[in-house]
Every structure is written in structure tokens, then in C-alpha cells.
């Protein structure tokens, strides 16, 4: 028995050493960007022949967008054959990481796509994983036919890591207030105006509730609005682009620019208790709902806070889901002393060791061009990310129309505040740049927990305050731990 154990241990040690030696070779950055850059031919013209593999999630709007982009891309570059792969969002980023690891160890990079969709929320962490993103700013330096200044500042800011460009932003997304004009008509309430004050907003909700209770009108399913509409406002309250602007609007901070945690404050509590009051009055549904948007699309909610990216989802009408047939949109209300509108961009990035780098760069440049942006906007789901189209009143995204739009569908809502002196637009980038990347996810979870507690057992004011203090302490600890590691 003793001999058995000894021999086992000996074998284990030997194997461990072998394996460790083999793995140790990977601990170091042996990617030579210059050599990789040489593989990109920035002078390639429309006749260039090649192949391209693009990966996106399998959500309907993403697939629709990619297909319209590929179609327009092939009109310009008819000899590049594009393959479009899809992946469930659930395992999307894991797949990228795992496949990169395998590709590096086996040397076979065909597992990875050349171009893949990326959202701003994940840019920083994907960048930190190393070996996944190609530094697009280096190609920018090399290629005179492209400049990052073509993008709007907001879109550009969230596409950078370490102040360098790593993602081509496809759109400029600002959270807006969609509303169902038919429900407002049934309740005999005036349509909302941009930047309502908090009190006006709450008064409007109360009037909606009273008006619907007095109304006998039915929705397209034959159900009367007074029973169909249980929660007036449909929103995913734990969405990062909602939580942070709400906090900021009330004057709260997560971290100060020098990295000190400032979450535990009266302002944070004010934001949380405002949302709690909305919840207690049943103006909004469960805080941690996973079905945000469903009620609105099934004509069971009057208001929906989201961005342009899901526009066709809202209006599309199938036998099952009727969509909203008289859609209005306006800019967000101002909930606190400051006016904050959430938003960001998603876009496309290039794999560091892509097998078809030239084709990938051609595609990315195309997405940033007016032709590409217009192809994307023609689906209706996009506000462009390039300045020239944003300020163009006749651009495709403005002229796009649908029979489902009501009279109060105001395209200005999607760019509201861009020309203000103190721009209300804010993304999580505003505070994540002050915290180490490895704790970003934990910080986001902590912020969400502050709000999710509203629906839990411990939801009295004191308990919510204690929860905020706890989360602040946790964030502080995690940041210090991450800083010590370095």
C-alpha cells in the first residue's frame, strides 16, 4: 500500500513538472504586432478575392443587421466570400475565450472567427484577456484611408481600451422612452414630452392608471387595457445602462476619479428609494425581470425604456406577438437633480491571429463607411455611429419609417442632448475607467444588488441603506485586493 502511494505520488510529480514546463511556454506575450500588421494589405481594392468568417449572437436583430451588412459588403467586394456563424449569447464570450486558448495551444486559428460582434460592456475584459483583440489603432496608423475621427465622440470613447481603438462601433445607442400611443389615447392622457421632470413623470403615471381604469378599450388581443396593463412601465431595471445613469442623475458616484469608493451616500439611497416607490405603486414590475420588453410588445405596458437597437422587435407584428402599432418615442425624463441618459455602442472587433486579416479589415472599414452605416440603418435598428450621418437630417435612419410609428415618433429623441453643453449622455465607461478591470463585473453586480434588494425580504429603508453600505465595503475590498495583486 505504501509503495503504491509512493509510486503514485512520484508519477504525479513527474507528470506535473512535464505539463507545467509545457504550459510555461505560454506565459508571455510572444505576439509580434508588427509581423501581424504586415499581413494586412491596406491598399486592397474592390476586386480583392478572399474569405471571411464573422461571428455574432443568434438574436434576431443581430442576425438581421449582419445579413444586411454582408449583402451591402458583397456589393462592394463581390469576390470575398463571407461565412456568418452564430452562437447563443449565453456562451458567446466563453466560446471566444476557450477557442482562443485552444487556438494558441494547437496553433490552429481557424476555430476563431476573423471578425466578431462585441458589446462595450465586454470590451475591457476581453481586452484584458490578451490574445483576442487585434489593436485596430495600429492599422489606423498604417492606413490613410481610415481615421477614427469619423466616429462620434461618445461611440469612440466606449470603443477604446487603454485609450486605443480596439472595436469599430456600429451604432450610437441612447436609452429613450418608447410609449404606446393607443394606451395613452385610451386613458386620455397627453403624450410625454422630452426631459420631463420627476414630478411630471409620476403625475403622468397616476393619470394613466386612473384613465385606464375608467376606460373600456381593448388591445389587439381583445383584452381590455384596464386588466391587461398591470405595470405601466416596462424596463429591465438591472440593466447596466439604466442603473448607472439613474444613480448619476441623483448625484451618486461609484468611485471618485482617484479610485476612492463613494457609493455609500445619501444620493445613492435616494435613487434606490425612488425606484422602490415606483415599485410599491406598481408602476414598474419586478426589478429582476428577465422578460423586459415582452409586456410592451404584447400591448400590456404603456412605456418602455430601451434603445434603438430593438426597434424592429417592438413594431414587428406576428400572429403571436402583435407588437406596438402606434409607437411614440421621446427623450428620457429627468429623475434627479442632474440629467443623465444611458447608452453606449456595440460593434465589431478583429481577432488577433485572424486567418484572413485583410478581408477582416476591409469589412471593418466598410462598417465605418457611409455605405455600411446606411445598410445597417436601413433595417431600422440603428442610429449610426459616424458623425456625418448623425448630423444629417436626411440620413437613412431618420427617413426610415414604418406604419407602426405614431404621430409622436420623434427621431430627435435618439440623439437628444448631443448638442448640450453639459451632455447628459453617460456610459458605464465613466466610472469603470477608474477601477481595475478584473473587478468590473463584481462592481456591476454590486450596483445591481443595491436595486434588486427592493424586491427581497430586506427592503425597509434601513435595510436598503445597510445593503448599500455593505456593497460599498465589498467594492472597496475587491479594488484593494486587485491593486495589491499588481
Amino acid at each position: 500500500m505504501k509503495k503504491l502511494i509512493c509510486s503514485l505520488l512520484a508519477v504525479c510529480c513527474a507528470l506535473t513538472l512535464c505539463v507545467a514546463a509545457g504550459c510555461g511556454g505560454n506565459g508571455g506575450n510572444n505576439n509580434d504586432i508588427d509581423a501581424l500588421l504586415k499581413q494586412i494589405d491596406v491598399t486592397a481594392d474592390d476586386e480583392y478575392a478572399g474569405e471571411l468568417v464573422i461571428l455574432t449572437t443568434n438574436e434576431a436583430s443581430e442576425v438581421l443587421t449582419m445579413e444586411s451588412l454582408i449583402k451591402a459588403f458583397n456589393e462592394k467586394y463581390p469576390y470575398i466570400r463571407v461565412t456568418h456563424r452564430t452562437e447563443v449569447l449565453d456562451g458567446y464570450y466563453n466560446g471566444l475565450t476557450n477557442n482562443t486558448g485552444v487556438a494558441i495551444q494547437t496553433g490552429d486559428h481557424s476555430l476563431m472567427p476573423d471578425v466578431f460582434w462585441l458589446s462595450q460592456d465586454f470590451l475591457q475584459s476581453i481586452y484584458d484577456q490578451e490574445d483576442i483583440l487585434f489593436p485596430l489603432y495600429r492599422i489606423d496608423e498604417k492606413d490613410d484611408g481610415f481615421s477614427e475621427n469619423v466616429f462620434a465622440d461618445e461611440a469612440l470613447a466606449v470603443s477604446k481600451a487603454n485609450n486605443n481603438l480596439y472595436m469599430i462601433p456600429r451604432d450610437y445607442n441612447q436609452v429613450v422612452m418608447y410609449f404606446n400611443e393607443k394606451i395613452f389615447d385610451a386613458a386620455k392622457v397627453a403624450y410625454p414630452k422630452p426631459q420631463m421632470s420627476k414630478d411630471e413623470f409620476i403625475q403622468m403615471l397616476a393619470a394613466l392608471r386612473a384613465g385606464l381604469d375608467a376606460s373600456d378599450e381593448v388591445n389587439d388581443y381583445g383584452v381590455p387595457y384596464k386588466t391587461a396593463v398591470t405595470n405601466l412601465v416596462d424596463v429591465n431595471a438591472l440593466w447596466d445602462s439604466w442603473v448607472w445613469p439613474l444613480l448619476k442623475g441623483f448625484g451618486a458616484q461609484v468611485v471618485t476619479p482617484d479610485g476612492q469608493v463613494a457609493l455609500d451616500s445619501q444620493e445613492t439611497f435616494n435613487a434606490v428609494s425612488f425606484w422602490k416607490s415606483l415599485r410599491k405603486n406598481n408602476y414598474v414590475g419586478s426589478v429582476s425581470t428577465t422578460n423586459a420588453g415582452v409586456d410592451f410588445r404584447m400591448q400590456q405596458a404603456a412605456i418602455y425604456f430601451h434603445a434603438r437597437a430593438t426597434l424592429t422587435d417592438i413594431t414587428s407584428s406576428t400572429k403571436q406577438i402583435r407588437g406596438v402599432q402606434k409607437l411614440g418615442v421621446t427623450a428620457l425624463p429627468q429623475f434627479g437633480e442632474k440629467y443623465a441618459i444611458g447608452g453606449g455602442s456595440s460593434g465589431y472587433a478583429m481577432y488577433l491571429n485572424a486567418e484572413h486579416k485583410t478581408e477582416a479589415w476591409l469589412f471593418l472599414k466598410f462598417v465605418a463607411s457611409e455605405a455600411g452605416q446606411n445598410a445597417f440603418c436601413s433595417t431600422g435598428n440603428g442610429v449610426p455611429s459616424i458623425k456625418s450621418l448623425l448630423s444629417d437630417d436626411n440620413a437613412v435612419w431618420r427617413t426610415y419609417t414604418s406604419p407602426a410609428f405614431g404621430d409622436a415618433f420623434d427621431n430627435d429623441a435618439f440623439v437628444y442632448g448631443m448638442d448640450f453643453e453639459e451632455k447628459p449622455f453617460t456610459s458605464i465607461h465613466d466610472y469603470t475607467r477608474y477601477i481595475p478591470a478584473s473587478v468590473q463585473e463584481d462592481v456591476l453586480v454590486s450596483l445591481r444588488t443595491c436595486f434588486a434588494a427592493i424586491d427581497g425580504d430586506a427592503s425597509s429603508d434601513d435595510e436598503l441603506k445597510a445593503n448599500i453600505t455593505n456593497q460599498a465595503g465589498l467594492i472597496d475590498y475587491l479594488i484593494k485586493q486587485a491593486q495589491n495583486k499588481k
Partner: protein
Amino acid sequence: MRAKKNDSRLGAFLRGAKKEYSNWLFMLPFIVGFSVFVAYPIIMSFVYSFTDFNAIRIKNYGFFNYENIFDFSAYGMGNDIWKSFGLTALYAVISIPLNMFLSFTLAMALRKAIPGIRGIRLLFYLPVLIPGIVMGQIWTDMLGHPEGLINQWLGAIGLPANTFFSSEKTQFATLIAISQWGIGGGMIVWLAALENVPKTLYEAAEMDGITFFGKLFKITLPMCTPIIFYNLIGSIIGALQVFDTYAYLGTGQNNGLYFISIRIYTTAFGGRVHDYGLACALAWVLFAVIAVLTGIMFKTSSWVFYGDSKQ
């Protein structure tokens, strides 16, 4: 003289090996499969547990993962991790005996072949066949608070709504309760075991006038001890790795259902930074716990009665 001595030891070994090699031949599929598909990943995961591998590169080697697991300072990782272990242990301690008792009772009830027993057994087994992804949807619809189906019915008959999964206080009990819908699976194993008890033993005992409980405790249970043992080991291993609730309940209210297997998974694949090294370290700690428990079970397994075979 010397040559003979060497030869005798080597020769004995070789002769012994020649007799035994056929045994190893039978086990060849497992040995090959194990070396390729299991041994290699296991060794890799052991190595990774000493690194900060993030599925792409390793940058640091050291014991830091294990240090973190046992770090019990305020906000230290150790507090949450061992809370997960505690939850999992609690779940195991409650659900295993409960499950075994209920499925055994069910098997005893369905043992006798009354007309239609095949269909009845199938009906009890049906809940086990529902795909996990669907089961989650069904339970959340039924046990939602306050608008779930069960709460609606409770309200209709005047009882107060139960918070089921929405409250930290009731979620654990609710989970134990709904796990019992799977006793159909255990029932099958017991039915097979009960069939094995020779009828002659019962007949002989009945001649001597034995009671129902006498039959149960003196004949049925002792003859079933191999299966009880198998079920016990299997249940321990299974309960300590419970994972399926993650798909529809996440980690529960205030992480009250954050079992250790779920924690390993979210450390490795959840969130934005894959800390695969830490996940491997956690898995090895879990493995050690399971191994120790199983070892204890085996050492104290003299109560298992194998009948007339080798032991």
C-alpha cells in the same frame, strides 16, 4: 546461484503477470479511456489550480488560489466559499435520507403486480423525463410570488400566499420539496433490488408467523444492503455536485442556493474574468471532501451483506 535467485523473483512476477494479464485485458477500454479522456484533463486541472490560468494564458504560479479559499478575513473569499460548502452539505444531509426513504416506500408500494402496475410505474417515472430546461420554467410559473399558479389557488381557498423561491427563508425548503418529484428514478433501482430478495425467505419466515415490520427489517432491508450502499454513495456524490437549479433559480436570494458546484462553474465560466485556476482549486477541494466521505463510507461498510459471493 545468483542468477537463479534473480530469476525466481522476476520469474514469479512474470508468471503472476501472465496469469493476470487477461484481467487487465478486460479492463483495457477503461484504462485507455481513462488515460486519454480523464487522466490528462485531471492532471491539467491540478496544475491549473496552482496558477491564474484564464483559459488562454498562465501568468503566475503559486499557492494563492488555495490561500484565497481559506481566507476568512472580512470580505475574504473563504467566507463565501465555505458558506457554499455548508449549503451543499445541508442539502445533502436533508435530501438524501428523505429521497431514499420516499423512493423506497414508493417502491414497496408498487412492488406487487396488481393489474396495470406497469402503467402506474411509468406514470411515477414520467416527471424524471422532463428536460431540465423545461422543468425550470414550469416551477417558476407554478411557484412564482405573488402571481404563481399555486399562490393563486391558495388565495382562492383563502390561504396566504407563500414566498416559495422569492424569499431567502423559504427557498431552501422549497427546493428540497421539489427535488422529491424525482423519486421515480430511485424507485426503479429499489424495485430491481426488491425483486432480488428470494421469495423462499419470505415463505419460510411466514411459516414462523412474522409481522410486516419483521419482514421489512429482518429480510428485505438486509438483502437490499448492496443497493442501499450503492445508492448512498451515488447520492452523496450527486448531492455534493448539485447544479441543475442554476439554470432557473440562479444562485438564489442572497446567494442562498449557491451550491459549490454552481460556484465552481461561475468562477470558471461566469462573469467577465474567467478564473479557471481558482475554479480548479475549488474543484480539488470538493473532490477531497467527497473522497474523504466516500472513504469513510467504505471503511464502515461492514453492514453490507453480499449473500453467497466473494467479498
